[in-house]
């Protein structure tokens, strides 16, 4: 018979090893992406200011001083543009339907709408890209002219894609508002809408913001659905209806074409590093909101 103490030690070691493997993988990922991403600046000697604020992305050509034209601002601006615009589209619908599910029609909402929304969280993003390509792009082309590809189409596709995620998190946020708050408001003579507007939405605000930011994280990092409909032109997104590009799209298209270690390839890794840092920033914001929410609720 094996002594209990050693069973216990083996169990602790085995599960600890699993946790360690996951952690080491993440640290390796951050380290390797950072190593390749920083090589652009340390090894290839590209100036960070030219990289982050330059507006011409044409790494195979060089400027007068002989350094490659690598301005990543069009991608960075494109990524932010599609993320913010899709957020604007999503926000009213997600919060509106979450309020509907929790406050107006809990029966129908909880039994029908919520399960359907949760089901849709799982739809693969390429399917949304395909819908964008076959439905949204021709539709936008029809009334806005041009090619139909661009920031507007991409934002619409992203909005539909993150809508289920944001709605389902918003439902959780609104449902977690204690009923005593609602009763207090009704007791003071407020009607339902006044209760929703002044009490429920206000106390659910940190949760709703977290929902929106998690939606933004998904939108910012989405690669294929955006790449299929944005038109992939490395130009500053000056119009919503002309082809533009994002960090993820350039990575998706470019990585396979360049050998490792070339300046262009290093520049792509710098873009990946920007993506990585942005998603870290999003987590940080979620944590700050949670901390602030916990403080204001005592």
């Amino acid at each position: 018979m094996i002594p209990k103490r050693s069973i216990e030690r083996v169990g602790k070691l085995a599960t600890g090893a699993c946790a360690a493997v996951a952690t080491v993988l993440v640290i390796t990922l951050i380290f390797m992406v950072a190593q390749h991403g920083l090589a652009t600046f340390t090894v290839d000697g590209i100036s960070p200011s030219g990289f982050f604020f330059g507006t011409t992305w044409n790494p195979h050509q060089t400027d007068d001083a002989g350094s490659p034209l690598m301005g990543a601002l069009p991608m960075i601006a494109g990524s932010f543009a599609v993320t913010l615009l899709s957020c604007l589209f999503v926000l009213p619908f997600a919060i509106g339907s979450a309020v509907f599910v929790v406050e107006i029609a809990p029966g129908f909402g909880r039994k029908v709408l919520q399960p359907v929304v949760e089901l849709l969280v799982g739809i693969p993003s390429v399917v949304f890209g395909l819908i964008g390509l076959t439905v949204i792009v021709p539709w936008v082309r029809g009334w806005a002219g041009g090619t139909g590809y661009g920031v507007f189409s991409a934002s619409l596709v992203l909005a539909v894609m993150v809508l289920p995620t944001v709605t389902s998190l918003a439902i959780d946020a609104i449902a977690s508002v204690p009923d005593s708050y609602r009763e207090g408001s009704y007791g003071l003579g407020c009607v339902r809408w006044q209760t929703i507007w002044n009490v429920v939405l206000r106390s659910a605000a940190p949760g709703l913001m977290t929902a929106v930011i998690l939606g933004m994280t998904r939108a910012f990092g989405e690669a294929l659905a955006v790449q299929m409909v944005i038109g992939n032109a490395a130009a500053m997104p000056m119009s919503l209806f002309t082809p533009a590009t994002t960090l993820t799209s350039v990575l998706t298209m470019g990585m396979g074409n360049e050998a490792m270690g070339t300046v262009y390839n290093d520049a792509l890794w710098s873009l990946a590093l920007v993506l990585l840092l942005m998603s870290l920033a999003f987590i940080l914001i979620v944590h700050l909101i949670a901390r602030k929410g916990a403080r204001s609720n005592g």
Partner: protein
Amino acid sequence: MADTVAAHIKKARTQDRIATGILIATAGVICALLAAIIIYILVSGASKVFDPAFLTGKPQQFQAGGGIGPELFNSFYLLLLTLIISTPLSLGAAVFLVEYAPDNVATRTVKTAIEVLSSLPSIVVGLFGFLFFVLTLGWGFSIISGALALTMFNIPILVRVIQQALEAVPSDQRDAGLALGLTRWETTVHILIPAAIPAVVTGIILSAGRVFGEAAALIYTAGQSAPVLDFSNFNLASMSCPWNIWRPAETLAVHIWKINSEGVVPDLTAVSNGTAAVLLLCVLAFNLLARFLGRRLSKKLAAE
């Protein structure tokens, strides 16, 4: 005075009615939109979904009538391998975090790392897989590289689900096990995990739906080509052996992306709509299966 109060009440009631109307309309729009998406995909791909030649045929690059046989198989095979690798790993990590983790720097690092992993864009995970598994370890575009990239994508989802399932087990059960002289490990294996099984199984199947439709993490790890498979070939080193984990393997989701970005297949719309419908049906099936199995298991365990 009474007049202004009456006017105020009237105003509040009208506002309430208008707001309720707008909220109902919003929910209606959402319902219509979600239903339209599913119906659109299923209807536009319907002619292909029930066509055995499409489901089993080999893909064509320059002529019409290509199928998705290898892609369909690759998707399921990759999913299976991913679950085989990621389930024990996530179970171990979750048990560690819930049952053993001391409150120290190491534990906080593990928690942060898993959270970071959950928020990473899947393309970044895919690029890391390309850098590490495909190039550094020299495994090339292969099923094993793809399965490991998907494992990284899947770990945070599974760890969270299993953690929640373990935490939801009433602490009486844990205390009872420990009070009977069981070690923490025995309590976990014999009491906590069986009690958490329904939620864990549901979580695994739901994550399977996510993994099944993932494409961005795969285009640079499992690759974008699907060698023709010969199911009578059991030579594990051969490119046409379906079970060879060193061959490249394009999945359904990658197939949709690739044929649309190349745009050379003549019946592009038909093939991609058909593939999307098959993909969607599989994902929906995973979701329904998760709900069904979760309910079934918890009923069975509760009855005992």
